[in-house]
């Protein structure tokens, strides 16, 4: 279920680059020689660096997510400690490819991206830091659409700055 270009596509691209020449050629050639795993998505720095919610959503391509009651989000009403907030997501949306966890009011809203292959259930449980009371926002990517569910989580002791 990778959406990576096929090896042949990459070879064609590489040859084009080589024809063009320059510093890029070396990089592409090096890329072809690496195992396939290394060609997996780079850590999405722009998305994780985004300080505003709409910036973060734009970076992951989720500009118009549709609210869905098929996303089960379990998070506390009042987080005992913002440094360790348990969040559990179950997606009932067929063809779930990715689950994104966002805390709207964190200094950088995007917290985590989980690529869901057919090899696992569309279920993730983890613990996140929240700087202050905020909506916890969960996005699901399925097909080429984005779906969203949110829950307000109150935080009395913020968890970002210690």
């Amino acid at each position: 279920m990778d959406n990576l270009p096929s090896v042949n596509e990459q070879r064609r691209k590489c040859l084009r680059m080589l024809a063009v020449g320059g510093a890029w050629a070396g990089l592409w050639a090096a890329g072809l020689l690496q195992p396939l795993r290394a060609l997996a998505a780079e850590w999405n720095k722009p998305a994780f660096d985004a300080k505003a919610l709409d910036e973060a959503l734009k970076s992951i391509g989720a500009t118009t997510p549709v609210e869905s009651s098929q996303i089960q989000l379990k998070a506390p009403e009042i987080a005992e400690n913002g440094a360790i907030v348990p969040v559990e997501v179950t997606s009932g949306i067929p063809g779930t490819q990715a689950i994104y966890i966002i805390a709207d009011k964190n200094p950088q809203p995007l917290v985590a991206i989980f690529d869901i292959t057919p090899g696992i259930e569309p279920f993730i449980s983890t613990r996140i830091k929240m700087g202050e009371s905020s909506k916890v926002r969960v996005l699901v990517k399925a097909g080429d659409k984005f779906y969203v569910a949110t829950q307000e989580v109150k935080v009395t002791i913020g968890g970002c700055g210690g």
Partner: protein
Amino acid sequence: MKIRAQLKGDVADVKVLMFHPMETGLRKDPITGDIIPMHFIQRVVATLNGKTVMDAQWSQAVSKNPFVNFRIRGAKQGDKVTVSWEDNKGEKASIETTLN
């Protein structure tokens, strides 16, 4: 890292606890007053018999000593599950378990 995997039918419920400071870069050293630099796990990959089943990207906002729970489909006794992580400094760790 610690891993617990429980097979129920053909679904393996996998729970992982990683030991990592997950520094946000916002904390000050209580003694020196210096900012403790960002140091956090960026990638987590889980495989079943060598095939990637989950690939995650994390920010520094995942809690310290991170926990993750996921459920592998089509699993059976004897299958090997590995979970690996890599952080922003290039440090890595990995753990493997056999389902029984």
